[in-house]
């Protein structure tokens, strides 16, 4: 049997032989987001995992703060902070195996870094340097996708290709609540379900698409309910509960790896910072709402649990903070150096073999740079620096 013959088979027949259709009940998400922290089942969570998540979330938060600071110093052109969403970003990435692939959206720098990408390389695009920066194949992380939802069909195609080749690779595709309105979301979900591709869709519902609140984005009972219409299971999880996110994601990844097909997961969370440093969130939301969500902080939730179970003393907290500070210092330091850019790169990767036209244009630019150099005594195009 080929991979594609295993598809579902809703094929209505005329009565009296109506085909029994799949029962939608198992596809429907629970009424409330799944939570672990603060509930009884938290006691069963693996202490090692709790500690790891805690350390990573503290690092992640520090990264968000540092990157935002770098925008103020002009070292980053722009930064879309995921403060408040660190549990989604990190717990999701940690649910993957090394051989798996991550397809991040533009806000998901933390997930990218959690996959092992160098923290500075992960910022390449945002600092105004070359578009993708990191090599996607090194850590199996697709370039951060700016056009919303367009990365979702890529994830499906890659997962499908891996399955065709017999590799047990899973793709995790991330998207925002706003991104679910795009046609590409729909088409990706549908292809994934029809092909039973090993892909997991994670929607971070952070309440806003820039200024547009969820109520103007959808009238659905929840975003997870969208799964039913594709014939895949939908799960709803508290996105600020790192343990719950890790558990739900891991389950979906296992399910996909075992040939069970895709899952759509909605993680309910909140964007604490403005959309980016360039945005003014006071234009569209009040402090009270933000305060309510601050009280449901993903790091604090973890801290409370760890403390209650005696897994976290002051030394451990300090160690996590220290580690985060070291990362931040290194980030600051390395981001302070201007990157080295070669303008000739503009022509060299447009095609496998540079066309005659591009060779002409390359020569023109080289001549201009040489003329510039003669005028200013600089090395031509050897380095460029400084974000705007």
């Amino acid at each position: 049997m080929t991979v594609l013959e295993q598809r579902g088979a809703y094929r209505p027949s005329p009565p009296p032989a109506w085909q029994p259709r799949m029962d939608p009940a198992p596809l429907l998400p629970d009424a409330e987001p799944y939570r672990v922290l603060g509930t009884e089942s938290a006691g069963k969570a693996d202490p090692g995992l709790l500690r790891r998540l805690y350390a990573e979330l503290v690092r992640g938060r520090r990264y968000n703060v540092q990157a935002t600071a770098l925008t103020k110093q002009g070292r980053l052109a722009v930064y879309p902070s995921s403060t408040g969403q660190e549990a989604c970003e990190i717990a999701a990435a940690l649910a993957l195996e090394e051989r798996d692939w991550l397809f991040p959206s533009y806000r998901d720098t933390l997930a990218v870094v959690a996959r092992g990408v160098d923290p500075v390389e992960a910022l390449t695009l945002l600092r105004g340097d070359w578009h993708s920066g990191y090599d996607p194949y090194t850590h199996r992380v697709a370039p951060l996708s700016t056009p919303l939802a367009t990365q979702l069909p890529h994830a499906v195609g890659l997962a499908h290709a891996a399955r065709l080749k017999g590799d047990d690779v899973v793709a995790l595709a991330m998207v925002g609540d706003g991104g679910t309105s795009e046609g590409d979301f729909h088409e990706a979900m549908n292809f994934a379900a029809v092909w039973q591709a090993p892909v997991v869709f994670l929607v971070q519902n952070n309440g806003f698409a820039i200024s547009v609140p969820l109520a103007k984005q959808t009238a659905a009972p929840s975003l997870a309910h969208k799964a039913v219409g594709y014939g895949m299971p939908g799960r709803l999880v508290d996105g600020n509960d790192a343990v719950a996110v890790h558990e739900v994601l891991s389950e979906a990844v296992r399910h996909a790896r075992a040939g069970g097909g895709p899952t759509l997961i909605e993680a309910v969370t909140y964007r604490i910072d403005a959309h980016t440093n360039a945005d003014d969130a006071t234009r569209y939301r009040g402090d009270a709402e933000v305060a309510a969500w601050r009280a449901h902080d993903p790091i604090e939730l973890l801290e409370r649990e760890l403390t209650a179970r005696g897994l976290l003393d002051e030394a451990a907290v300090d160690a996590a903070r220290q580690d985060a500070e070291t990362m931040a210092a290194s980030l600051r330091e390395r981001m302070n150096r201007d990157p080295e850019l070669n303008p000739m790169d503009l022509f060299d990767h447009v095609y496998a073999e540079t066309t005659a036209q591009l060779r002409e244009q390359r020569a023109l630019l080289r001549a201009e740079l040489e003329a510039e150099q003669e005028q200013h005594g600089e090395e031509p195009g050897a380095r460029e620096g400084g974000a705007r």
Partner: protein
Amino acid sequence: MTTVAVKPATMAQALTRAMRDAMAADPTVHVMGEDVGTLGGVFRVTDGLAKEFGEDRCTDTPLAEAGILGTAVGMAMYGLRPVVEMQFDAFAYPAFEQLISHVSRMRNRTRGRMPLPITVRVPYGGGIGGVEHHSDSSEAYYMATPGLHVVTPATVADAYGLLRQAIASDDPVVFLEPKRLYWSKDTWNAEQPTDVEPIGRAVVRRPGSSATLITYGPSLPVCLEAAEAARAEGWDLEVLDLRSLVPFDDETVCAAVRRTGRAVVVHESTGFGGPGGEIAARITERCFHHLEAPVLRVAGFDIPYPPPMLERHHLPGVDRILDAVARLQWEAEG
């Protein structure tokens, strides 16, 4: 009404004012798009409209460009005049099927019975240090689509005047707003904006006799600067602002080129397959025997728009324009 003296306004402010005045004058004008309501748009060009006219007239839509333009088509069918904002140039691409297959063709398809008076505002072009997908010059796609008007202002007065005309037009207009001119200022009387030339007319922004620079939108200030600099080299350059790529003003363009005998087309868009090819070709067809040199083009390279730190190498600048002018075979003149 307070008396407002003639004072500097930005292009963004003039655009806002144009929508405001259009909405006040005509209840069928509706503004829609991502973040255009409460936030006033990511460039604040729709600032205040939702407050003044209500959410039904200035609407934050779901995040889906085909859906935005597709629903605008339906609204126009029912007699409204939607003004659609695409957040950035590259984010208009999801709406291409609606634009090409419906917006541009509905009038023709129905032999005039179902016009679609839709204005699609697209902030376009680079020079603002934008990350990938935020600096595309997509005008070639629109130009190659019969049934659309393609309009782009380069001055504050035109921003107001052309946008008012676009909204009032019974044809669909792709209204390309040069992002990097949003904050350009000019003295301009918001209370009594003077009329500007109609869509379809090019305007000489600087008279000159040695050669004509033909340009539009974001490259106009660069060309004016180049013309200034050219005086040092002894060239008196004319600068022509096309204002609308469709309809194209062959008359004004050819009159200019016949006068000077030399022309350079300047734009940010890639050269290959970009607007300059059409412009140069039609000038040559019409003015061949008046030309002392081939019409040259100074354009962006034939590459995907570069990262911010390299964009200055890509964008046509004064030096590159002057180099082209220098190549206009002056010796041949005699």
